[in-house]
């Protein structure tokens, strides 16, 4: 990165540079090692895969070779968990360098991570930790998004996370924070429908208000996943089928955001690929039911 580019971190462009909206990808799955063989042997009817960036930010070996082979057949999106965009700790230069190198190799359709932090003081908790939705946090994250986008040379995509606590001094709702963030940085949004459901339940707000509060033209991906309902709170486990309430929210999201690239995410208790494909077919059916001809039109572009 040039010094000139580095200096740009401290100031915010009056208007983010316009960047073309990432293309519509259809219906994909999170890429998991358990499914490698089936993907390579059977060419399953999946439109694209989302690869966890860190799983491939390694020196070499089989995971990278397999990713190369899958990339030759399917579009790939890189989805990270350790960017720590909201942390007050300095960025890890090694991490950003590794991310850029992987992007150079994979040529992903886009690069995403989460609106969260993962640690301070050189420690990584390997969790997606909550932030207060304040002006101070917004200014901080905006500067960091500019830094990353300058370094990577492309707009990034940020996902809303599931949260279990909120901070009393937040002075805006999460959707307003996301809206301001995308307006001020030009970043795109990965709208995790399950996470909206989880956070809305945990913090006593209406998930539909969240959906209505996010700018419709900035959402470029949906996540669908399962969770664990403890009655007093919900834990985002990503280890179960998408539940009926989340399918309903997916319908509402489609109505508001239109055709948006969608994946089903499963991080634990991962079933055979055929079961994931079947659940993905349900997402296709729901989208077709809600969007009708608009879906086919998006797919044809």
């Amino acid at each position, binding site marked *: 990165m040039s010094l000139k580019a580095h200096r740009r971190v401290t100031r915010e462009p009056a208007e983010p540079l316009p960047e073309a909206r990432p293309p519509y990808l259809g219906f994909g799955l999170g890429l998991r090692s358990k499914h490698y063989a089936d993907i390579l042997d059977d060419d399953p009817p999946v439109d694209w895969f989302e690869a966890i960036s860190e799983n491939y930010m390694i020196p070499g070996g089989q995971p990278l070779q397999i990713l190369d082979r899958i990339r030759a057949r399917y579009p790939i999106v890189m989805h990270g968990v350790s960017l720590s965009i909201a942390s*007050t700790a300095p960025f890890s230069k090694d991490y950003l360098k590794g991310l850029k190198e992987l992007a150079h190799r994979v040529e992903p359709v886009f690069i995403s991570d989460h609106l969260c932090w993962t640690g301070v003081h050189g*420690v990584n908790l390997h969790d997606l930790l909550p932030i207060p939705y304040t002006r101070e946090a917004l200014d901080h994250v905006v500067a960091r998004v500019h830094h990353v986008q300058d370094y990577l040379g492309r707009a990034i995509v940020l996902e809303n996370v599931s949260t*279990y*606590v909120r901070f009393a001094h937040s002075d805006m709702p999460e959707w307003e924070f996301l809206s301001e963030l995308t307006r001020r940085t030009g970043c795109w949004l990965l709208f995790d429908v399950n996470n909206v459901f989880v956070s809305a339940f945990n913090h006593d707000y209406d998930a539909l208000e969240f959906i209505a509060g996010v700018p419709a033209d900035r959402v470029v991906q949906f996540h669908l996943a399962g969770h664990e309902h403890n009655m007093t709170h919900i834990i985002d486990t990503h280890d179960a089928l998408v539940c009926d309430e989340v399918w309903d929210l997916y319908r509402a999201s489609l109505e508001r955001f239109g055709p948006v690239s969608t994946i089903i995410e499963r991080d634990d208790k991962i079933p055979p690929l055929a079961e994931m494909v079947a659940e993905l077919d349900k997402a296709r059916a729901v989208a077709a039911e809600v969007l009708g001809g608009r879906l086919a039109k998006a797919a044809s572009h």
Partner: protein
Amino acid sequence: MAMAAAKDAKKRAAAPRPRPVPSLGELQERFQAAVMAGDDAVLDLIPDNSRTTRTVLLGVYRHAYVSRLVDIVGNDHPILARYLGDEVFGAMARGYVKEHPSRNSNARWFSHGLPEFLSSSPVLGSRREVAEIARLERALNDAFDAADAAVLDLARLSAYPPERWGELCLVPHPSAARLDLETNAYAIWRALKEDGEPPAAAELADRERLIVWRNGTMPTVRPLGAEEAMMWDEAAKGVPFSALCELVAIFDAADTAALRAAGYLQTWIGAGMLSAAKLARRRRRRQI
């Protein structure tokens, strides 16, 4: 006037004191301390939800932090987990999580310090095979995703005229690592790997010499005899092949030394343990 002032003062005292709002950095420090060390100071900033308390809600992060990292240690060390059993392994892994916060953006390397942690553990340190099983599993994990490199084959070696083979320095594949074990940890590991009953832990009279590398895409381990291990170690230092033959001749029968050295070399090449051979004595080394 005095009464009004007193009333105002009383009113001010009765009003709830506004909580000082921490900076984002202070909040993150407090939150991290809450998750990692059980510090409750951050609870002042968190409201209950309509169904449960802030303590329960914060507890989700506290529980997830430990369980996620314990799972990582278990995934990286499945044979050790089997050897120790769930209870002992779980307690050990929780101890590791507590003493070794992750300092890498990538959880892939979280458990890298486990063998050293086990060696110095007051509970398991005296069971030396435990740390050695962890060392073996770490070496296999490292071989799995070590850097890619060309693999030396006989065709590429034969590009050199035989009279110059003595000048060749062998370059180990980046995935290759040597381990010397002082217990029967390898026998224990192998038995458990094959779903068998592990032998009782024992100190060995002579150390177990192992080589770990990636053969194709598969991490592989193989015991080495003393002579082969010596030759490998010297080769890895860049000692040319003629000098390796001389060392082998000192090690055992001199008249068959060249044959034995050539046999080891052939084995290494066949197993993909080498990535290159370079001529040693030229200023501009040629690599094949």
